[in-house]
C-alpha cells in the first residue's frame, strides 16, 4: 500500500514537472505575472510529492518489505538499520530517486528565496529546473521504477554489496549528489540568462552561493569517498583515477573554476560568456558522471547493473540537455557584450589564469577518461589510461596554479603591482626554497619531486598566512588583531581557509608518497616486525561475529622504542548474503602519520599474511579537505552571499542592472 502511494506520488510529480516547465514559460510569453508566479507553488508541490515517494521507498527498506522487487534485490533483514537506509540509494533505482529528490529540493530552495530574484527570471530558472526533473522522472518511471512488486514475496532479500556497508559510504553518495545536483541550479541560472540574453554582475551574485554550496558538497563527497577507499580497500591507496572518480573530479574542477570566474563577473563585469559556458559545462560533467555509472559503457568499481535501454535513455537526455544548452550558448553568446578591461598584472588576470589551468585540467581528465573508449570505437584496440598520465597532468597544470595562487589575493583589481606582492611574499619564497633544499639534502624517495611538492605546499600555506597578516596587521599590532580580523569579510576568510587547505593536501600527498614504509609479512602469534620507527607485534587472532558477517580479527601491539603507542585491530570479514570478503584495515592516526595494518589469509599452521604500513601525514588529505569545506561554509555565511538581506536589497535598487528586461 505504501509502495503504491510512492508510485502514485512519483507519477503526480511527473505531471507537475511538466506543468512547471510549461506554465511559467507561457506566463513569460504572455507577460502574465500570475502564471509566472504559479511556478513557486508548482515547484513546492513537486518537492512534496518526490519526498513522499522517496519516503515510501525508504519505508519499504526500513520494514524490509520484500514484496517490492527493489528491496529484495538490495536489502536483507540482518543488515544494521543504517545500511538498510543507505541501501535505498545504494542501487540504480534508488540513487535516481535521490537525484530527483535533491533536484526538486534545490528547485524548492530557489523558489523559497522568493522575492530575492525578479519574478520573470525566477520563473525562467524554475521552468528549466522543472524540465530537468521531468527528464529524471521519465527515466525513473519508464526504465527504473523502484516500486515494482514481486509476487510471491520471498522471505529474504539479496543484501547489499558488503563493500558498501560502511559509514563512510553511507554518506558519500548523498554528499556527491547534493554537489552534482547543486550545479543544476547554476545550470538553470545560466540557461535562463542565455534565454533572457543578459548577464549582469547581479546574476553572478545570485549564482555564487549555489556554486559555492555545490562545490562544498562535492569536496566533502569526494573526500569521504577517498577516505573510504583508504581504509576499506585494504592497501592504503586513496585515489585510483577510476573513470567514475574522474567523473566526480571534473565537475569539482569546473565548479572551482566557476567559483573564481563568477567573482570577476560580479566585481568587474567581465568574462561573462566564459562564466556562462563554465556553468553549463560544470553541470554537463555531472550528468556525464551519471551516464558513465549508469550506462555501463566503461568498467568501473562503481558500475551498477547494465541495461542498454537505460543507457539509450540517458544518452538521449544528455544529448538534449548538454547539446541543447551548448547550442543555445553558441546562438546567444554574441549578445553577452564584453566589458571591464584589465591589465596583465591584476586580480582579474590571476583569476583568468586560475580558470585556464583548472579547466585545462578538467579537459585533460576528460580526455584521459574517454580516450580508451574513443580508441576502441575507432579501431577496436583496447587500452587503459593509467595513473602516470593523470599524475603528470596534475603536476604540470597544478604547479603553476599553486605558484600563482600565492600572488592572486595580493593583487589589486584592474591593475596590480607585482613588486608589492613580492615584497609581502618574500618570507614565503625563502621558506619554500629552504624546504626544497632541505628535502633534496635529506634525499627521500623521489627526491626532486618530493622537494618540489613540499616547497609548493609550504609556499602556499606561508603565502596565505602572510596575506592574512597583511590584511590584519597581526605582526605590527597583535593587540588589534581580533578587531581587524572581524572587519575582514567572511568570504575572504573562507578563501584563506580553502587555499590553506589545498596547501595541507599537497603536503599530505607529497609526504605520504615519499616516506610511506610498508611491509608484507607472514607472521605467527608473537612475531614482531619494525616498520619505520614502529614495532608491530601480532598479539592475538580470534574469530569475531558481526550482525551479518563473521570475521577474523587480529590484534597488533604497536610500540616505539619499547613504549606503547597503539593497538590496531584489523579484520578480514566474510559476509553471508551476498557471499563476499572484505578487509577492514586497522588504522591509528598519530600527528606524524597513520599506522595501518591489514590481516590477510591464513596460510594454515597459525601463520597469517599481514600488511603493515606507516604513512606519514596522510591525514593531511582529509584535514586539508576539511579546511576547504569549512572555508566554503564560512564564505557561504557571508552576508553578501545571501540575497534578500537588506544590504543586498538596497544595492539592487540602486543599480538598474536587473535582468527584468
Amino acid at each position: 500500500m505504501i509502495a503504491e502511494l510512492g508510485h502514485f506520488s512519483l507519477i503526480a510529480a511527473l505531471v507537475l514537472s511538466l506543468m512547471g516547465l510549461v506554465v511559467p514559460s507561457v506566463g513569460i510569453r504572455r507577460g502574465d505575472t500570475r502564471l509566472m508566479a504559479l511556478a513557486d507553488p508548482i515547484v513546492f508541490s513537486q518537492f512534496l510529492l518526490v519526498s513522499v515517494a522517496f519516503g515510501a521507498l525508504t519505508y519499504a527498506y526500513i520494514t524490509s518489505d520484500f514484496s517490492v522487487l527493489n528491496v529484495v534485490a538490495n536489502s536483507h533483514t540482518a543488515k544494521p538499520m543504517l545500511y538498510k537506509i543507505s541501501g535505498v540509494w545504494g542501487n540504480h533505482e534508488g540513487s535516481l530517486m535521490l537525484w530527483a529528490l535533491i533536484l526538486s529540493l534545490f528547485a524548492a530552495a530557489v523558489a523559497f528565496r522568493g522575492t530575492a530574484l525578479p519574478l520573470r527570471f525566477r520563473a525562467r530558472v524554475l521552468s528549466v529546473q522543472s524540465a530537468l526533473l521531468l527528464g529524471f522522472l521519465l527515466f525513473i518511471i519508464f526504465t527504473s521504477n523502484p516500486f515494482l512488486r514481486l509476487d510471491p514475496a520471498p522471505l529474504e532479500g539479496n543484501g547489499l554489496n558488503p563493500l558498501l556497508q560502511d559509514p563512510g559510504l553511507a554518506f558519500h553518495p548523498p554528499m556527491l549528489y547534493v554537489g552534482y545536483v547543486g550545479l543544476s541550479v547554476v545550470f538553470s541560472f545560466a540557461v535562463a540568462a542565455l534565454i533572457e540574453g543578459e548577464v549582469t554582475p547581479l546574476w553572478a551574485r545570485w549564482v555564487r552561493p549555489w556554486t559555492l554550496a555545490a562545490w562544498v558538497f562535492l569536496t566533502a563527497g569526494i573526500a569521504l569517498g577517498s577516505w573510504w577507499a583508504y581504509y576499506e580497500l585494504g592497501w592504503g591507496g586513496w585515489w585510483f583515477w577510476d573513470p567514475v572518480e574522474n567523473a566526480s573530479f571534473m565537475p569539482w574542477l569546473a565548479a572551482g573554476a566557476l567559483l573564481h570566474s563568477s567573482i570577476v563577473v560580479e566585481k568587474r563585469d567581465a568574462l561573462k560568456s566564459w562564466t556562462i559556458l563554465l556553468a553549463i559545462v560544470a553541470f554537463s560533467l555531472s550528468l556525464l558522471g551519471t551516464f558513465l555509472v549508469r550506462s555501463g559503457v566503461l568498467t568501473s568499481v562503481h558500475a551498477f547493473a547494465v541495461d542498454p535501454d537505460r543507457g539509450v535513455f540517458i544518452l538521449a537526455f544528455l544529448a538534449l540537455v548538454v547539446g541543447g544548452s551548448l547550442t543555445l550558448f553558441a546562438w546567444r553568446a554574441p549578445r553577452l557584450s564584453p566589458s571591464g578591461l584589465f591589465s596583465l598584472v591584476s586580480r582579474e588576470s590571476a583569476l583568468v589564469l586560475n580558470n585556464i589551468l583548472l579547466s585545462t585540467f578538467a579537459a585533460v581528465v576528460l580526455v584521459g577518461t574517454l580516450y580508451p573508449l574513443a580508441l576502441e570505437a575507432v579501431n577496436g584496440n583496447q587500452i587503459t589510461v593509467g595513473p602516470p598520465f593523470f599524475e603528470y597532468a596534475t603536476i604540470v597544470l597544478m604547479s603553476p596554479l599553486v605558484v600563482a595562487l600565492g600572488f592572486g589575493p595580493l593583487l589589486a583589481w584592474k591593475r596590480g603591482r607585482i613588486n608589492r606582492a613580492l615584497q609581502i611574499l618574500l618570507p614565503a619564497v625563502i621558506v619554500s626554497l629552504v624546504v626544497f633544499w632541505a628535502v633534496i639534502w635529506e634525499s627521500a624517495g623521489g627526491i626532486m619531486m618530493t622537494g618540489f611538492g613540499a616547497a609548493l605546499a609550504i609556499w602556499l600555506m606561508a603565502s596565505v598566512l602572510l596575506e592574512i597578516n597583511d590584511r590584519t596587521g597581526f605582526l605590527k599590532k597583535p593587540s588589534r588583531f581580533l578587531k581587524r580580523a572581524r572587519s575582514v569579510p567572511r568570504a575572504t576568510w573562507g578563501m584563506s581557509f580553502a587555499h590553506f587547505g589545498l596547501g595541507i593536501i599537497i603536503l599530505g600527498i607529497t609526504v605520504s608518497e615519499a616516506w610511506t614504509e610498508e611491509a608484507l609479512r607472514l607472521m605467527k602469534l608473537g612475531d614482531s616486525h619494525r616498520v619505520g620507527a614502529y614495532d608491530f607485534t601480532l598479539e592475538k587472532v580470534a574469530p569475531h561475529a558481526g550482525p551479518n558477517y563473521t570475521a577474523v580479527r587480529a590484534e597488533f601491539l604497536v610500540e616505539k622504542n619499547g613504549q606503547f603507542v597503539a593497538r590496531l585491530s584489523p579484520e578480514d570479514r566474510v559476509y553471508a548474503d551476498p557471499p563476499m570478503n572484505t578487509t577492514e584495515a586497522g588504522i591509528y592516526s598519530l600527528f606524524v602519520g597513520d599506522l595501518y595494518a591489514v590481516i590477510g589469509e591464513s596460510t594454515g599452521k597459525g601463520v597469517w599474511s599481514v600488511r603493515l604500513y606507516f604513512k606519514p601525514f596522510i591525514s593531511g588529505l582529509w584535514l586539508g579537505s576539511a579546511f576547504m569545506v569549512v572555508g566554503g561554509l564560512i564564505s557561504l555565511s557571508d552576508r553578501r552571499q545571501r540575497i534578500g538581506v537588506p544590504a543586498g536589497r538596497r544595492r539592487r535598487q540602486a543599480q538598474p542592472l536587473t535582468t527584468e528586461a
Partner: protein
Amino acid sequence: MTGFGRYIPVLIVVVILAVFFKMMGGDRNPKEIKSVLIGKPVPVFSLPALTEDKPGISEADLKTGKPTLVNFFASWCVPCRAEHENLMRLAFEEGVPIIGIAYKNEAVKAQAFLDELGNPFAKAALDLNGRVSIDWGVTGVPETFLIDGAGIIRYRHWGPIVGDSLEKRLMPQLEKLQ
C-alpha cells in the same frame, strides 16, 4: 565570444555523444578483454586427461585438419552449467569436436559435473593449478576458443554461450571455417 569559437563546445559534445552511441550498440561487454591470441597458433601445452586411464592432451591434438572448440570450464562455475546445454548441442547435433579443460577443479568434481549433465567433450583435460589457462589468456570460466584445422586460434568466446550468442556469434565463426 562572437566567432566560430562559440560552436566548439557543442561540436565536442556531438563527437563524445557519437562515441558513446557507437559503444553502447551491439552486445559489447566493457568487462571483456579482447584476446591477443586471435590468428596465432595455440600455445604449447601438455595436460593430463581428466580420467587417468586416458592419454593426456597437448597442442598436437588440436591440429586435426578440422575446426575444434576448446572449452575452459569448472564444476564450481554457475555460468558453465548454463552453457552446458549448448555445448551438448554443438557436440551431438552439429558434430563439432570439443576439448574440455577443467580449470582449477578437482578431477572427481569435474567428472561428477559431466556425469550429471552429460559429457560433450571428445577429450577432457585437467588444469589443476591454472598455469595452462594463463598461457591461453583465460580471464575466467567459461571461455571457449575456436581452433582451425591447422591449430590457429580463430575466435575466442568470452563468457557463457547462452541466449542468442550461440546463433549470432559462435555459429557464424564456425561456419566460416567449415
